[in-house]
Protein backbone atom coordinates (compact mmCIF):
# COMPACT_ATOMS: atom_id res chain seq x y z
CA UNK A 1 0.00 0.00 0.00
CA UNK A 2 1.57 3.33 -1.06
CA UNK A 3 2.25 5.85 1.67
CA UNK A 4 0.00 8.53 0.21
CA UNK A 5 -2.79 6.28 -1.02
CA UNK A 6 -5.17 7.59 1.63
CA UNK A 7 -4.15 11.25 1.64
CA UNK A 8 -7.19 13.60 1.61
CA UNK A 9 -6.30 14.80 -1.90
CA UNK A 10 -6.13 11.25 -3.18
CA UNK A 11 -9.40 10.38 -1.42
CA UNK A 12 -11.21 13.16 -3.19
CA UNK A 13 -9.47 12.35 -6.45
CA UNK A 14 -10.38 8.66 -6.23
CA UNK A 15 -13.95 9.53 -5.30
CA UNK A 16 -14.33 11.78 -8.32
CA UNK A 17 -12.65 9.24 -10.60
CA UNK A 18 -14.95 6.46 -9.43
CA UNK A 19 -17.96 8.67 -10.08
CA UNK A 20 -16.90 9.85 -13.46
CA UNK A 21 -16.24 6.28 -14.52
CA UNK A 22 -19.46 4.97 -12.98
CA UNK A 23 -21.48 7.54 -14.90
CA UNK A 24 -20.08 6.17 -18.11
CA UNK A 25 -20.07 2.51 -17.14
CA UNK A 26 -23.66 2.49 -15.89
CA UNK A 27 -24.95 3.22 -19.38
CA UNK A 28 -24.18 -0.37 -20.34
CA UNK A 29 -25.54 -1.95 -17.15
CA UNK A 30 -28.94 -3.60 -16.95
CA UNK A 31 -28.89 -5.30 -13.54
CA UNK A 32 -28.00 -3.96 -10.10
CA UNK A 33 -25.45 -6.72 -9.50
CA UNK A 34 -23.45 -5.46 -12.49
CA UNK A 35 -23.15 -2.09 -10.84
CA UNK A 36 -22.37 -3.59 -7.43
CA UNK A 37 -19.65 -5.78 -8.91
CA UNK A 38 -18.21 -2.81 -10.77
CA UNK A 39 -18.26 -0.74 -7.58
CA UNK A 40 -16.52 -3.30 -5.39
CA UNK A 41 -13.83 -3.88 -8.04
CA UNK A 42 -13.30 -0.16 -8.42
CA UNK A 43 -13.07 0.38 -4.65
CA UNK A 44 -10.60 -2.47 -4.39
CA UNK A 45 -8.40 -1.02 -7.14
CA UNK A 46 -8.66 2.69 -6.43
CA UNK A 47 -8.48 2.55 -2.67
CA UNK A 48 -6.14 -0.43 -2.56
CA UNK A 49 -8.44 -2.48 -0.35
CA UNK A 50 -7.65 -6.23 -0.18
CA UNK A 51 -11.29 -7.37 0.08
CA UNK A 52 -14.48 -5.40 -0.60
CA UNK A 53 -17.95 -6.89 -0.22
CA UNK A 54 -21.35 -5.37 -0.84
CA UNK A 55 -24.30 -6.75 1.10
CA UNK A 56 -27.94 -5.83 1.55
CA UNK A 57 -30.33 -6.52 4.41
CA UNK A 58 -34.07 -6.01 4.20
CA UNK A 59 -35.32 -3.18 6.40
CA UNK A 60 -38.11 -3.54 8.91
CA UNK A 61 -37.29 -7.13 9.86
CA UNK A 62 -35.43 -7.83 13.03
CA UNK A 63 -36.19 -11.51 13.50
CA UNK A 64 -35.41 -13.02 10.09
CA UNK A 65 -31.92 -13.08 8.56
CA UNK A 66 -31.89 -11.39 5.17
CA UNK A 67 -28.21 -10.59 4.52
CA UNK A 68 -27.48 -11.06 0.85
CA UNK A 69 -24.05 -10.79 -0.72
CA UNK A 70 -24.30 -9.01 -4.07
CA UNK A 71 -20.70 -8.49 -5.02
CA UNK A 72 -17.16 -9.04 -3.85
CA UNK A 73 -13.71 -8.08 -5.07
CA UNK A 74 -10.40 -9.38 -3.75
CA UNK A 75 -6.83 -8.53 -4.64
CA UNK A 76 -5.42 -11.92 -3.79
CA UNK A 77 -7.26 -15.00 -5.09
CA UNK A 78 -5.73 -17.13 -2.35
CA UNK A 79 -7.65 -15.21 0.29
CA UNK A 80 -10.59 -17.14 1.80
CA UNK A 81 -13.24 -15.44 -0.28
CA UNK A 82 -16.47 -17.42 -0.15
CA UNK A 83 -15.66 -19.06 3.15
CA UNK A 84 -15.54 -15.60 4.63
CA UNK A 85 -18.72 -14.56 2.85
CA UNK A 86 -20.87 -17.29 4.35
CA UNK A 87 -19.64 -16.69 7.86
CA UNK A 88 -19.74 -12.94 7.58
CA UNK A 89 -23.52 -12.84 6.99
CA UNK A 90 -24.32 -12.83 10.72
CA UNK A 91 -21.88 -10.00 11.32
CA UNK A 92 -23.41 -8.05 8.44
CA UNK A 93 -26.91 -8.51 9.92
CA UNK A 94 -25.64 -6.99 13.15
CA UNK A 95 -23.93 -4.12 11.33
CA UNK A 96 -27.10 -3.40 9.32
CA UNK A 97 -29.18 -3.25 12.49
CA UNK A 98 -26.71 -0.76 14.00
CA UNK A 99 -27.29 1.52 10.96
CA UNK A 100 -23.93 3.22 11.50
CA UNK A 101 -20.83 3.36 9.37
CA UNK A 102 -17.56 2.78 11.14
CA UNK A 103 -13.98 3.87 10.63
CA UNK A 104 -11.47 1.00 10.58
CA UNK A 105 -11.55 -1.21 13.67
CA UNK A 106 -9.30 -4.08 14.70
CA UNK A 107 -10.73 -7.19 13.08
CA UNK A 108 -11.41 -8.93 16.40
CA UNK A 109 -13.80 -6.15 17.39
CA UNK A 110 -16.05 -6.94 14.44
CA UNK A 111 -15.75 -10.68 13.84
CA UNK A 112 -15.85 -13.70 16.14
CA UNK A 113 -12.47 -14.94 17.39
CA UNK A 114 -12.12 -17.90 15.03
CA UNK A 115 -12.89 -15.78 11.97
CA UNK A 116 -10.59 -12.98 13.16
CA UNK A 117 -7.66 -15.35 13.48
CA UNK A 118 -8.39 -16.75 10.01
CA UNK A 119 -8.45 -13.25 8.52
CA UNK A 120 -5.31 -12.24 10.40
CA UNK A 121 -3.52 -15.20 8.88
CA UNK A 122 -4.08 -13.49 5.54
CA UNK A 123 -2.81 -10.18 6.91
CA UNK A 124 -6.30 -8.68 7.21
CA UNK A 125 -6.10 -7.04 10.62
CA UNK A 126 -8.70 -4.28 10.22
CA UNK A 127 -12.26 -3.90 9.09
CA UNK A 128 -14.30 -0.83 8.12
CA UNK A 129 -17.90 -0.75 7.00
CA UNK A 130 -20.26 1.74 5.42
CA UNK A 131 -23.98 1.52 5.95
CA UNK A 132 -26.64 3.29 3.88
CA UNK A 133 -30.34 2.68 4.32
CA UNK A 134 -32.50 3.44 1.31
CA UNK A 135 -36.15 3.20 0.39
CA UNK A 136 -35.58 1.23 -2.77
CA UNK A 137 -36.53 -2.16 -4.10
CA UNK A 138 -35.09 -4.64 -6.58
CA UNK A 139 -36.91 -6.02 -9.61
CA UNK A 140 -38.52 -9.38 -8.66
CA UNK A 141 -36.30 -11.26 -11.13
CA UNK A 142 -33.18 -9.77 -9.51
CA UNK A 143 -33.97 -10.44 -5.89
CA UNK A 144 -36.29 -12.84 -4.06
CA UNK A 145 -37.50 -11.51 -0.75
CA UNK A 146 -37.06 -13.51 2.43
CA UNK A 147 -40.72 -12.87 3.26
CA UNK A 148 -43.87 -11.88 1.47
CA UNK A 149 -44.90 -8.82 3.38
CA UNK A 150 -44.36 -5.37 1.96
CA UNK A 151 -40.89 -3.91 2.09
CA UNK A 152 -39.46 -0.85 3.81
CA UNK A 153 -36.34 -0.57 1.68
CA UNK A 154 -32.90 -2.03 2.13
CA UNK A 155 -29.78 -1.40 4.15
CA UNK A 156 -26.68 -1.52 1.97
CA UNK A 157 -23.47 -2.54 3.69
CA UNK A 158 -20.01 -2.20 2.16
CA UNK A 159 -17.56 -4.28 4.12
CA UNK A 160 -13.88 -3.48 3.72
CA UNK A 161 -11.18 -5.81 5.00
CA UNK A 162 -7.88 -4.00 5.35
CA UNK A 163 -4.26 -4.78 6.06
CA UNK A 164 -3.55 -1.47 7.80
CA UNK A 165 -5.41 1.54 9.13
CA UNK A 166 -6.04 4.10 6.38
CA UNK A 167 -6.49 7.84 6.98
CA UNK A 168 -9.69 9.03 8.59
CA UNK A 169 -11.13 10.31 5.29
CA UNK A 170 -11.27 6.77 3.96
CA UNK A 171 -14.64 5.63 5.36
CA UNK A 172 -16.47 8.90 4.59
CA UNK A 173 -15.16 8.72 1.00
CA UNK A 174 -16.46 5.15 0.57
CA UNK A 175 -19.74 6.15 2.18
CA UNK A 176 -20.22 9.04 -0.23
CA UNK A 177 -19.45 6.78 -3.17
CA UNK A 178 -21.99 4.23 -1.96
CA UNK A 179 -24.69 6.87 -1.37
CA UNK A 180 -24.22 8.56 -4.68
CA UNK A 181 -23.85 5.30 -6.60
CA UNK A 182 -27.17 4.16 -5.16
CA UNK A 183 -28.70 7.48 -6.20
CA UNK A 184 -27.38 7.01 -9.72
CA UNK A 185 -28.63 3.41 -9.79
CA UNK A 186 -32.07 4.57 -8.70
CA UNK A 187 -32.03 7.25 -11.34
CA UNK A 188 -31.12 4.65 -13.97
CA UNK A 189 -33.92 2.37 -12.65
CA UNK A 190 -31.49 -0.36 -11.63
CA UNK A 191 -33.05 0.15 -8.22
CA UNK A 192 -36.78 0.73 -8.06
CA UNK A 193 -38.66 3.05 -5.75
CA UNK A 194 -40.55 1.26 -2.97
CA UNK A 195 -44.25 1.01 -3.85
CA UNK A 196 -46.63 3.53 -2.26
CA UNK A 197 -48.49 1.00 -0.10
CA UNK A 198 -45.31 -0.33 1.50
CA UNK A 199 -44.01 2.93 2.93
CA UNK A 200 -45.35 6.32 3.89
CA UNK A 201 -44.23 8.62 1.15
CA UNK A 202 -44.55 12.27 1.99
CA UNK A 203 -46.30 14.66 -0.27
CA UNK A 204 -42.97 16.25 -1.07
CA UNK A 205 -41.43 12.98 -2.09
CA UNK A 206 -44.42 12.24 -4.28
CA UNK A 207 -43.85 15.52 -6.01
CA UNK A 208 -40.28 14.51 -6.80
CA UNK A 209 -39.74 15.42 -10.42
CA UNK A 210 -38.20 12.70 -12.57
CA UNK A 211 -35.09 14.78 -13.13
CA UNK A 212 -34.60 15.52 -9.42
CA UNK A 213 -31.68 13.58 -7.88
CA UNK A 214 -33.26 10.83 -5.76
CA UNK A 215 -30.99 11.53 -2.80
CA UNK A 216 -31.83 15.23 -2.76
CA UNK A 217 -34.85 15.33 -0.37
CA UNK A 218 -32.90 13.91 2.57
CA UNK A 219 -29.75 15.98 2.14
CA UNK A 220 -28.89 18.71 4.63
CA UNK A 221 -28.18 22.23 3.42
CA UNK A 222 -25.76 24.51 5.23
CA UNK A 223 -24.74 28.08 4.58
CA UNK A 224 -21.16 28.19 3.37
CA UNK A 225 -18.56 30.06 5.40
CA UNK A 226 -16.83 32.51 3.10
CA UNK A 227 -13.08 31.91 3.54
CA UNK A 228 -12.13 35.35 2.21
CA UNK A 229 -14.76 37.25 4.21
CA UNK A 230 -13.21 39.86 6.51
CA UNK A 231 -9.74 38.93 5.25
CA UNK A 232 -9.72 39.91 1.61
CA UNK A 233 -13.27 41.14 1.20
CA UNK A 234 -15.24 43.77 3.03
CA UNK A 235 -17.96 41.89 4.93
CA UNK A 236 -20.30 44.85 4.69
CA UNK A 237 -19.86 45.52 1.02
CA UNK A 238 -19.46 42.20 -0.66
CA UNK A 239 -21.97 39.99 1.07
CA UNK A 240 -23.69 37.52 -1.15
CA UNK A 241 -26.31 39.15 -3.33
CA UNK A 242 -29.08 36.71 -4.12
CA UNK A 243 -31.28 38.31 -6.72
CA UNK A 244 -33.54 35.32 -7.34
CA UNK A 245 -36.45 35.72 -4.90
CA UNK A 246 -37.13 32.02 -4.46
CA UNK A 247 -33.46 31.30 -3.92
CA UNK A 248 -33.33 34.07 -1.31
CA UNK A 249 -36.43 32.69 0.45
CA UNK A 250 -34.91 29.22 0.47
CA UNK A 251 -31.55 30.59 1.66
CA UNK A 252 -33.14 32.47 4.56
CA UNK A 253 -34.86 29.29 5.75
CA UNK A 254 -31.57 27.34 5.91
CA UNK A 255 -30.57 26.74 9.51
CA UNK A 256 -27.87 24.14 8.99
CA UNK A 257 -30.02 21.28 10.32
CA UNK A 258 -33.03 21.03 8.03
CA UNK A 259 -33.11 18.66 5.09
CA UNK A 260 -34.29 19.73 1.64
CA UNK A 261 -37.75 18.27 2.30
CA UNK A 262 -38.02 20.11 5.62
CA UNK A 263 -36.91 23.33 3.97
CA UNK A 264 -39.58 22.79 1.32
CA UNK A 265 -42.18 22.44 4.07
CA UNK A 266 -40.91 25.62 5.75
CA UNK A 267 -40.88 27.69 2.57
CA UNK A 268 -43.90 26.10 0.91
CA UNK A 269 -41.82 25.30 -2.15
CA UNK A 270 -42.01 22.14 -4.24
CA UNK A 271 -38.94 19.96 -4.64
CA UNK A 272 -38.56 21.14 -8.20
CA UNK A 273 -38.52 24.77 -7.08
CA UNK A 274 -36.14 23.88 -4.26
CA UNK A 275 -33.81 22.21 -6.73
CA UNK A 276 -33.76 25.36 -8.89
CA UNK A 277 -33.09 27.49 -5.81
CA UNK A 278 -30.32 25.13 -4.72
CA UNK A 279 -28.64 25.30 -8.11
CA UNK A 280 -28.79 29.10 -7.99
CA UNK A 281 -27.33 29.16 -4.48
CA UNK A 282 -24.63 26.67 -5.45
CA UNK A 283 -23.64 28.81 -8.41
CA UNK A 284 -23.27 31.75 -6.00
CA UNK A 285 -21.17 29.49 -3.75
CA UNK A 286 -23.13 30.37 -0.66
CA UNK A 287 -24.30 26.91 0.42
CA UNK A 288 -22.88 23.45 0.99
CA UNK A 289 -24.74 20.16 0.84
CA UNK A 290 -24.21 17.36 3.35
CA UNK A 291 -25.55 13.87 3.85
CA UNK A 292 -27.65 13.31 7.00
CA UNK A 293 -24.53 11.70 8.49
CA UNK A 294 -22.63 14.95 8.00
CA UNK A 295 -20.45 14.09 5.00
CA UNK A 296 -20.09 16.65 2.23
CA UNK A 297 -21.83 15.87 -1.04
CA UNK A 298 -20.10 16.48 -4.33
CA UNK A 299 -22.61 18.91 -5.81
CA UNK A 300 -21.01 18.89 -9.25
CA UNK A 301 -21.94 15.25 -9.52
CA UNK A 302 -25.29 15.59 -7.79
CA UNK A 303 -26.65 17.97 -10.40
CA UNK A 304 -24.56 16.88 -13.34
CA UNK A 305 -26.44 16.62 -16.65
CA UNK A 306 -29.60 18.04 -15.15
Amino acid at each position, binding site marked *: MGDDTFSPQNMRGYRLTVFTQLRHAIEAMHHPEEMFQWMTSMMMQRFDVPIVQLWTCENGWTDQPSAHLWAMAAQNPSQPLYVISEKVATVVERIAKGQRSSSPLPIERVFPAYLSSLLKRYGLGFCAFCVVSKNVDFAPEAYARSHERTAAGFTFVVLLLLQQVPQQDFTPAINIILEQALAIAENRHLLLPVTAESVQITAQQEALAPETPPALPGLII*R*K*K*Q*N*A*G*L*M*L*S*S*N*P*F*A*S*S*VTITDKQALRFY*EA*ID*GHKSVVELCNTTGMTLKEAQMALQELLSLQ*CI*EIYTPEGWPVDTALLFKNR
Partner: protein
Amino acid sequence: MNTRLIPNLLDVSLCLVALFIAVRSFDIYSRFRQYRLFILGLSMVLLSLSAAADFTSSYISVVALHTDWFLYIGQSVGFLFILLSLVQSSDRYLRSLMNVNILVFILLLILLLLSPALPAMPNATRTLFGFARLLICMFIMCAYFSAYMNKPVRFSLLMSASFFFFTIDYLITLEQYVVPTLSQYLFRAPADIIGVIGLVMLVSAVSIE
Protein backbone atom coordinates in the same frame (compact mmCIF):
# COMPACT_ATOMS: atom_id res chain seq x y z
CA MET B 1 -5.97 72.32 28.16
CA ASN B 2 -8.01 69.43 29.49
CA THR B 3 -5.60 66.49 29.70
CA ARG B 4 -8.50 64.02 29.23
CA LEU B 5 -9.62 65.60 25.96
CA ILE B 6 -7.72 63.36 23.55
CA PRO B 7 -8.17 60.13 25.56
CA ASN B 8 -11.89 60.90 25.81
CA LEU B 9 -12.02 61.61 22.11
CA LEU B 10 -10.40 58.24 21.49
CA ASP B 11 -12.79 56.48 23.88
CA VAL B 12 -15.89 58.03 22.32
CA SER B 13 -14.63 57.37 18.78
CA LEU B 14 -13.72 53.78 19.57
CA CYS B 15 -17.05 53.22 21.30
CA LEU B 16 -19.07 54.57 18.36
CA VAL B 17 -16.99 52.96 15.62
CA ALA B 18 -16.99 49.57 17.35
CA LEU B 19 -20.73 49.84 17.98
CA PHE B 20 -21.36 50.72 14.34
CA ILE B 21 -19.35 47.73 13.14
CA ALA B 22 -21.02 45.45 15.71
CA VAL B 23 -24.55 46.44 14.64
CA ARG B 24 -23.74 45.95 10.95
CA SER B 25 -22.05 42.62 11.68
CA PHE B 26 -25.04 41.26 13.60
CA ASP B 27 -27.42 42.54 10.96
CA ILE B 28 -25.57 40.72 8.19
CA TYR B 29 -25.01 37.67 10.38
CA SER B 30 -28.76 37.36 10.96
CA ARG B 31 -29.24 37.07 7.20
CA PHE B 32 -26.20 35.15 6.03
CA ARG B 33 -25.11 33.14 9.08
CA GLN B 34 -21.41 33.82 8.58
CA TYR B 35 -19.95 32.91 11.96
CA ARG B 36 -16.95 35.15 11.38
CA LEU B 37 -19.29 38.14 11.34
CA PHE B 38 -20.83 37.12 14.64
CA ILE B 39 -17.37 36.87 16.20
CA LEU B 40 -16.47 40.28 14.76
CA GLY B 41 -19.72 41.72 16.12
CA LEU B 42 -19.22 40.34 19.61
CA SER B 43 -15.57 41.43 19.69
CA MET B 44 -16.61 44.90 18.62
CA VAL B 45 -19.24 45.03 21.36
CA LEU B 46 -16.45 44.17 23.77
CA LEU B 47 -14.23 46.94 22.41
CA SER B 48 -17.12 49.38 22.48
CA LEU B 49 -17.97 48.51 26.07
CA SER B 50 -14.33 48.77 27.13
CA ALA B 51 -14.08 52.27 25.66
CA ALA B 52 -17.41 53.28 27.23
CA ALA B 53 -16.30 51.91 30.62
CA ASP B 54 -12.98 53.79 30.41
CA PHE B 55 -14.79 57.00 29.50
CA THR B 56 -17.37 56.57 32.29
CA SER B 57 -14.82 55.74 34.95
CA SER B 58 -12.96 59.01 34.32
CA TYR B 59 -16.09 61.00 35.19
CA ILE B 60 -17.40 59.01 38.14
CA SER B 61 -15.68 59.94 41.36
CA VAL B 62 -18.21 58.71 43.93
CA VAL B 63 -16.81 55.21 43.75
CA ALA B 64 -13.49 54.09 42.35
CA LEU B 65 -14.31 52.15 39.18
CA HIS B 66 -11.30 50.03 38.32
CA THR B 67 -12.34 49.46 34.74
CA ASP B 68 -8.73 49.06 33.58
CA TRP B 69 -9.11 45.31 34.18
CA PHE B 70 -12.00 45.17 31.75
CA LEU B 71 -10.34 47.65 29.38
CA TYR B 72 -7.11 45.70 28.98
CA ILE B 73 -8.46 42.16 29.23
CA GLY B 74 -11.58 42.97 27.19
CA GLN B 75 -9.61 44.60 24.36
CA SER B 76 -7.01 41.80 24.34
CA VAL B 77 -9.74 39.16 24.21
CA GLY B 78 -11.75 41.08 21.59
CA PHE B 79 -8.74 41.37 19.29
CA LEU B 80 -7.74 37.77 20.03
CA PHE B 81 -11.10 36.43 18.80
CA ILE B 82 -10.85 38.54 15.65
CA LEU B 83 -7.40 37.08 15.06
CA LEU B 84 -8.55 33.52 15.76
CA SER B 85 -11.52 33.91 13.41
CA LEU B 86 -9.08 34.74 10.60
CA VAL B 87 -6.95 31.66 11.19
CA GLN B 88 -9.38 29.09 9.75
CA SER B 89 -12.65 29.22 7.89
CA SER B 90 -14.10 25.76 8.44
CA ASP B 91 -17.71 25.68 9.58
CA ARG B 92 -16.96 23.57 12.66
CA TYR B 93 -14.01 25.71 13.78
CA LEU B 94 -15.85 29.01 13.47
CA ARG B 95 -18.95 27.65 15.19
CA SER B 96 -16.88 26.39 18.13
CA LEU B 97 -15.00 29.69 18.27
CA MET B 98 -18.31 31.56 18.30
CA ASN B 99 -19.54 29.48 21.26
CA VAL B 100 -16.31 30.11 23.18
CA ASN B 101 -16.57 33.81 22.32
CA ILE B 102 -20.08 33.96 23.81
CA LEU B 103 -18.91 32.24 26.99
CA VAL B 104 -15.87 34.51 27.38
CA PHE B 105 -18.04 37.55 26.68
CA ILE B 106 -20.33 36.63 29.58
CA LEU B 107 -17.34 36.18 31.89
CA LEU B 108 -15.99 39.57 30.87
CA LEU B 109 -19.34 41.21 31.56
CA ILE B 110 -19.11 39.81 35.07
CA LEU B 111 -15.62 41.31 35.32
CA LEU B 112 -17.04 44.68 34.22
CA LEU B 113 -19.81 44.51 36.83
CA LEU B 114 -17.22 43.74 39.47
CA SER B 115 -15.20 46.86 38.59
CA PRO B 116 -16.12 48.77 41.79
CA ALA B 117 -14.96 45.83 43.90
CA LEU B 118 -11.70 45.19 42.08
CA PRO B 119 -8.36 46.58 43.27
CA ALA B 120 -6.43 49.06 41.17
CA MET B 121 -4.61 47.33 38.35
CA PRO B 122 -0.90 46.89 39.15
CA ASN B 123 1.52 48.26 36.59
CA ALA B 124 3.00 44.82 35.95
CA THR B 125 -0.43 43.40 35.03
CA ARG B 126 -1.19 46.44 32.92
CA THR B 127 2.11 45.96 31.10
CA LEU B 128 1.40 42.25 30.60
CA PHE B 129 -2.05 42.76 29.07
CA GLY B 130 -0.83 45.83 27.18
CA PHE B 131 1.89 43.70 25.65
CA ALA B 132 -0.58 40.92 24.80
CA ARG B 133 -2.88 43.45 23.12
CA LEU B 134 0.06 44.86 21.19
CA LEU B 135 1.16 41.42 20.01
CA ILE B 136 -2.35 40.39 18.94
CA CYS B 137 -2.82 43.62 16.98
CA MET B 138 0.53 43.05 15.32
CA PHE B 139 -0.53 39.51 14.30
CA ILE B 140 -3.81 40.82 12.89
CA MET B 141 -1.87 43.45 10.96
CA CYS B 142 0.40 40.69 9.58
CA ALA B 143 -2.64 38.54 8.66
CA TYR B 144 -4.18 41.42 6.69
CA PHE B 145 -0.89 42.37 5.11
CA SER B 146 -0.33 38.78 4.05
CA ALA B 147 -3.89 38.69 2.64
CA TYR B 148 -3.09 41.88 0.75
CA MET B 149 0.11 40.39 -0.67
CA ASN B 150 -1.85 37.34 -1.85
CA LYS B 151 -4.75 39.30 -3.24
CA PRO B 152 -4.18 43.06 -3.44
CA VAL B 153 -7.53 44.57 -2.50
CA ARG B 154 -8.17 47.89 -0.82
CA PHE B 155 -10.01 46.33 2.11
CA SER B 156 -7.06 44.26 3.37
CA LEU B 157 -4.67 47.16 2.77
CA LEU B 158 -6.79 49.55 4.84
CA MET B 159 -7.30 46.91 7.54
CA SER B 160 -3.57 46.25 7.79
CA ALA B 161 -2.94 50.02 7.93
CA SER B 162 -5.58 50.36 10.63
CA PHE B 163 -4.04 47.61 12.75
CA PHE B 164 -0.62 49.06 12.10
CA PHE B 165 -1.76 52.30 13.77
CA PHE B 166 -3.37 50.37 16.63
CA THR B 167 -0.10 48.50 17.11
CA ILE B 168 1.86 51.75 17.24
CA ASP B 169 -0.74 53.22 19.60
CA TYR B 170 -0.40 50.27 21.99
CA LEU B 171 3.39 50.24 21.66
CA ILE B 172 3.63 53.89 22.71
CA THR B 173 1.06 53.30 25.46
CA LEU B 174 3.23 50.46 26.72
CA GLU B 175 6.37 52.61 26.67
CA GLN B 176 4.85 55.21 28.98
CA TYR B 177 5.01 52.76 31.86
CA VAL B 178 8.79 52.57 31.69
CA VAL B 179 9.39 56.33 31.78
CA PRO B 180 9.07 58.74 34.72
CA THR B 181 5.51 59.82 35.57
CA LEU B 182 6.07 63.38 34.37
CA SER B 183 7.12 62.22 30.92
CA GLN B 184 4.13 59.90 30.56
CA TYR B 185 1.98 62.72 29.16
CA LEU B 186 4.48 63.11 26.33
CA PHE B 187 3.62 59.56 25.23
CA ARG B 188 -0.09 59.47 25.97
CA ALA B 189 -1.22 62.21 23.59
CA PRO B 190 0.61 60.93 20.48
CA ALA B 191 -0.56 57.39 21.26
CA ASP B 192 -4.18 58.52 21.44
CA ILE B 193 -3.87 60.53 18.22
CA ILE B 194 -2.42 57.51 16.43
CA GLY B 195 -5.28 55.42 17.87
CA VAL B 196 -7.81 57.84 16.37
CA ILE B 197 -6.03 57.60 12.98
CA GLY B 198 -6.28 53.81 13.28
CA LEU B 199 -10.02 54.12 13.86
CA VAL B 200 -10.43 56.38 10.84
CA MET B 201 -8.65 53.76 8.74
CA LEU B 202 -10.91 51.05 10.20
CA VAL B 203 -14.05 53.01 9.35
CA SER B 204 -12.69 53.62 5.84
CA ALA B 205 -11.96 49.93 5.39
CA VAL B 206 -15.46 48.81 6.27
CA SER B 207 -17.23 51.71 4.53
CA ILE B 208 -15.54 51.84 1.14
CA GLU B 209 -17.15 49.34 -1.21
